[in-house]
Every structure is written in structure tokens, then in C-alpha cells.
């Protein structure tokens, strides 16, 4: 006879524990985090290295030398040329996004210095309507190219976007050739473009300016795909590889130059800026 009490019996018919997750749970490893700790770690999980989304302002604060960032085109806003209405009016979604994020659009552009190197920044923010690219984002990116050309300084572009903004219909598709033409002007002027792909960089943004950088780095685990895994699965019923569309797969297939963890990105950019100076 065992001298231990068998508790197994008591739990045999117990209902499974409810799926109630702690609000601050890492989606990758399930560990809990404190908000201030996560922020101090640049929104990277201390346990498993999972990269949480990083807002445009926070990213600019992290890359740019203190006090050097001067925002440009801050007043550019989306319009609603189609008077688009799905389950809710587009105009309402825009207003809500601005209220929730404190941003005027899904991209922030401006001048800055990184370790003393003057640069032009164009940083996307996924929290503003999924970082989707409509006319305003296309215009802001184009102006960032022009500003970089005018001052002869490299463009550092950070992408995080689900793709074109459907609510602007065909005009959102036209932001692909628009931003591509802006990058071509940049290339013609021999101004370097360094691209950082954050999670996710997909569809219309990947199929336009994001893919045209001179040097392209990605964050670990970022989804970088023209068509995301869900749609590929639904349309083709193919079995997807485990790392389908992730930065790691993109590196293996030769679509990006390197995967650089967030904490090392600034140093990596500085090295590149020195080389292109």
C-alpha cells in the first residue's frame, strides 16, 4: 500500500480549467510580463524573445538620437472618396483609429539623426487600421523619399502593414505604383534606402516599396508574405510548412538580407549608415 494519498481519483471528473488567460501573457511562450518591464525591453519577451508590435513613435524614439526627430507631413489625413461603408462607415473607422492611436495615419515620417548620421525616417504603425496603406500613407511615404532626395540623406523605412486599405478601393491599389515610382526616383538620385520589416509586412506593402530597399532586414518571427497563411490554406488547401511566410523562411529563400533582433537593430543600422556615408 502506498503511503501517499492518491489525489488522482478526486480530479478524475473535474471539469477542465476555464481558458482564462492573464491579460499580460506572451502569445509565444505563455509567460506573464509586466508592462513597464516589457517596454524597457523594447517590447521583446524576456523569456522567449517574442517580438511584440512596436508603435511608430516608440520605434522612432528608439532609433533616433534624442531630440533630433522633426516630424513632416503630420497634417496629411485620409479622405473617403468612395464614401465606403461596410459594416461601419470608413470615416468612422478613421476617426476611431486616430482617437485610439493618437496618430493621424498609419505612417509617421520625418527627419532625424541616428548616432549622428542624418537620416529620413518613414515608420509604419500596425495599430492604425492594421497599418493599411491608403492614399495618405502612400503620399507620406512618397514625401519621405522626396525629403531624403532633397537633403541627400539615407531613407530608413520600417514597414508593418496588412496591405492596401480596401476602404479606398482602387486608389489604395494605386499606392503600389505610386510608392514604387517614389523609390525609383530615390534610386536615380543614389540615395540609399534601408528597410526594416516588422510583423507583419504583407500584401500591397510587400508588393511595392517594402521590397525595393537597398538593404532589407527583418525582425525575428515577422510574417513577410504577399498572401498570408490563412488565405493560402483556404484557396489552395495546401499543407503549409511550419515557418510559412515567416522572416526565417524568407531569409532561407533569399528574400531578405538578415534577421536582426530589435535590441541590435540600431547598431546594425548605424553600421550600414557608416558604410553608405
Amino acid at each position, binding site marked *: 500500500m502506498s503511503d501517499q494519498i492518491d489525489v488522482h481519483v478526486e480530479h478524475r471528473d473535474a471539469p477542465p480549467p476555464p481558458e482564462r488567460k492573464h491579460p499580460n501573457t506572451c502569445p509565444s511562450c505563455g509567460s506573464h510580463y509586466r508592462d513597464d518591464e516589457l517596454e524597457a525591453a523594447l517590447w521583446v519577451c524576456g523569456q522567449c524573445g517574442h517580438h511584440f508590435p512596436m508603435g511608430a513613435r516608440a520605434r522612432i524614439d528608439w532609433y533616433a538620437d534624442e531630440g533630433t526627430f522633426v516630424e513632416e507631413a503630420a497634417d496629411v489625413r485620409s479622405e473617403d472618396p468612395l464614401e465606403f461603408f461596410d459594416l461601419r462607415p470608413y470615416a468612422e473607422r478613421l476617426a476611431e483609429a486616430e482617437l485610439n492611436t493618437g496618430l493621424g495615419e498609419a505612417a509617421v515620417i520625418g527627419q532625424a539623426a541616428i548616432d549622428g548620421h542624418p537620416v529620413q525616417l518613414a515608420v509604419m504603425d500596425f495599430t492604425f487600421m492594421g497599418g493599411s496603406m491608403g492614399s495618405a500613407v502612400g503620399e507620406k511615404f512618397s514625401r519621405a523619399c522626396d525629403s531624403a532626395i532633397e537633403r541627400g540623406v539615407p531613407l530608413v523605412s520600417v514597414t508593418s502593414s496588412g496591405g492596401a486599405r*480596401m476602404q479606398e478601393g482602387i486608389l489604395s491599389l494605386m499606392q503600389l*505604383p505610386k510608392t514604387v515610382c517614389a523609390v525609383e526616383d530615390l534610386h536615380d538620385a543614389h540615395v540609399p534606402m534601408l528597410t526594416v520589416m516588422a510583423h507583419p509586412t504583407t500584401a500591397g506593402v510587400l508588393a511595392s516599396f*517594402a521590397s525595393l530597399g537597398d538593404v532589407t532586414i527583418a525582425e525575428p518571427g515577422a510574417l513577410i508574405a504577399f498572401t498570408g497563411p490563412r488565405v493560402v490554406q483556404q484557396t*489552395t488547401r495546401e499543407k503549409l510548412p511550419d515557418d510559412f511566410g515567416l522572416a526565417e523562411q524568407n531569409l532561407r529563400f533569399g*528574400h531578405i538580407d538578415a534577421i536582426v533582433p530589435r535590441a541590435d537593430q540600431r547598431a546594425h543600422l548605424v553600421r550600414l549608415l557608416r558604410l553608405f556615408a
Partner: protein
Amino acid sequence: MTERDQELNLRRRLSGLSRLPLLRGARVDGEAQRLERQLERLKADTSDEAIWRSVELARHADRPYTMDYVERLIDDWVELHGDRGRADDGALVTGLGRFGGRTIALIGHQKGRDVKERLDRQFGMAYPEGYVKAMRVMEIAERFGFPVVSLVDTPGAYPGVAAEQHGQGGAIARSQAEMARLTVPTVACIIGEGGSGGAVAIAVADRVLMQENAIYSVITPEGCAAILWRDAGEAKKAAAAFKPDALHCLELGVIDGVVAEPAGGAQTNHDEAAQLLGGALLEALEELEETPGEELRRRRRAKFRGMGVYA
């Protein structure tokens, strides 16, 4: 929309039409009249229905495809196969031929007529290999001064595992970049479905035309409905909301002109459809050939960089 709104809308569209350089010539007068008739029809109809009719006609199984136009319009056609790296993509055909007394490079999506051909051509959805092949032919055109004509007819770029692994997004971006660099005249026409990145990849042209019943959109109506309405069955509503028809594209400044189709749609008479398309392509080319290459490129970039509506 109230009747008053609709009327204002139509007036705005008509005034846009009369400003079009393409519609000024005597021969295209007929086209303007045809458009006016269509506008009348729009006025009589609920416009949502007219938009959906365009979606259905653009995808009509008997609609002429790229090779149907090649047969009727191009002499000495020589198809060029393969991207020189990996494969030959049947969803996107490329080649050289004589058109209106000059050699042109032609790039076009190709759907299939029967089940086997549809599968071979992936329903007109190109892999990155297709766009790489297109870029190769654009380079030939640039080197020898051949104008580039592209015919767009795709539901979108192929959404599969291998297409992603071979770099679908990058290929579409670079194909647009290649078109933005050309110094030869370029004319694109949407001849059926102009679906998303897969379409615009070969449509960064000096003149972008659209057949009367073609559609040009950022996503398929079904895809949009699945995302925004969470129900692919709401495709009709989605199409009415994002307005992929030729007249709305013209009104938004996305295309430069509308090419007439035979009454009832291009599927009713392939010969007449080809004749109308050929006339429009030739007129656009002749007009562009007067402009020096560097200037063409500058204007092309300025045109696309001016697209969008923002405050």
C-alpha cells in the same frame, strides 16, 4: 443615394470624360457616344446592379483572352517562353510581334478555355516566374526601343506556398519598378479582371486603358466581402462599395480611357472587340511615340505619383 446625388455624380463623370485627350479624335467620338449611352443606362439602373454586371461580364467564360487578341491584331507573333531561372509561367504570355507597322513587345495574362488549359495556366494567376519573364521581355523592349503593350486579365497573383517561397511580393514590386524605368512608350489595357497586385505589376504604363466591361480592383469582391463583411456571399455588396467598374476608375483618375466593346459585351463578337481594342491601342501608341523617352518616363512617374485622394 438620392436621385439628386446620382445626377451630380453623373454630371461630374461626364465632365471628366469630355476632358479626356483620348476621346477627342473623330474615330473615338463613337466611343464617347457609347459611354454616354452607358451613363444613360446607369442613370436608369441602380448603379450597384450595373457594377455587378461588369463583374460578371469581366469574368465571362467566352470573353476574349490575350491570345484571342494576339491572333487578330499581331502579325509575325513570336512567343517568348521562360524566365531563364526556374520556369515558364503559362498564366502570363510574352512575345514580340508586328502591330501597326512596328515591332512591339507584348505581355498579357492568359486564362484557359477548357479545364486542362485552365489548370495549365492557373486560371490566369501568375507565379513570380511569370513576372520575372515579363521583366525580361521589358528589358529587350528597352534595349531595342520596342513599345510595350500589356493586356491585364487576372483574378490576382497566384496565392500558393511555392509562389510565396519564390518571392511573389518582391517580383510584383520589381516588375512595377521595371515599368517605371522604361523609356519606351507603354500602353496597358485591362481586358477582363484587373485583380490587385498581380494586375498592377504589368500596368504601370503611360496610358492605362480599360475595356467597357472590365473591372480593376484592389481585391476580388469575394475576398473583400470575406474580410470586411466576414461572408464571401456578400460579394455583390462589396463590389458596390469599392466600385471596380471602368467608369468609376476613370472618374478617380486611375485610368486614362475606356475602350468600347461590342454591344452586349466583348464575348458576343471577338472580332469586333479586337478591332475596337486594336484601334485604341494604336491611337495611344502613336500619340506617345511623339514624346522623347526620358520625358515619357518623367510623365509616367508623375502620373502615378499624383494618384490618391487625401487631405
